[in-house]
């Protein structure tokens, strides 16, 4: 299927931008007239990926987070990218309740939420280079 629309934004790795990013994603997706529940799922997944980029990727230091949104007739593809520390073991990182930062009251649920609320999740990462999360959500699934 061919994309019908596309946008890309970049923002600083500041926690105030978590709400900004999920609102942008929801506003863009609104073109496809998703249900409120589908929009809530999308916002939560975006919030998880952006929060991870800020807390883990950049370890709360300055950096740039990129978000690309591609609309298809029935779905949205979201890519969230950081050029932070990277993930050493992706398989381990995506296990429910695994967290490398329990001292920051993280509980290791982010990837599980992304997996559950979206229809697909792909994680690419290299140590010292960064992490790229690609997720897809199909709207009006019957």
């Amino acid at each position, binding site marked *: 299927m061919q994309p019908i629309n596309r946008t890309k934004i970049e923002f600083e790795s500041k*926690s105030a931008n978590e709400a900004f990013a999920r609102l942008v994603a929801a506003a863009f997706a609104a073109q496809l007239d998703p249900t409120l529940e589908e929009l*809530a799922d999308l916002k939560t997944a975006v919030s998880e990926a952006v929060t991870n980029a800020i807390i883990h990727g950049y370890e709360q230091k300055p950096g740039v987070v990129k978000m690309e949104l591609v609309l298809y007739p029935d779905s949205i593809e979201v890519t969230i990218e950081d050029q932070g520390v990277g993930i050493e073991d992706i398989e381990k990182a995506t296990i429910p309740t695994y967290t490398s930062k329990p001292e920051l*009251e*993280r*509980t290791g649920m982010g990837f599980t*939420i992304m997996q559950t609320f979206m229809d697909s999740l792909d994680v690419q990462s290299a140590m010292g280079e960064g992490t790229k999360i690609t997720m897809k959500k199909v709207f009006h699934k019957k």
Partner: protein
Amino acid sequence: MEITVKQENQILTVFLKGELDHHTAISVKDTIDMLLVKTPFKVLVLDMAGVTFMDSSGIGLIAGRYNRVRSIGGSMKIANPSFSLTRILKMSGIEKLMKII
């Protein structure tokens, strides 16, 4: 995030209003932890009727307060979460730790 508090018969109720994410959780955590220290209570109730968004940062916040409350001999409940919050509470196992009313 707007926080209001009610204290009655050893029950400390904290009402949250707004979106609970990593950005807002920091001040909510500090406010509740301060209350836990200076208020005598047996039960902490987190009333989430006004919470319109929550991600895993909310889970961390709840789990962290639960551990703190338990360590001083109290118990904790979650009140009035929306449909989408309930889904996240169930997924994370919070539902097994405390009553959702």
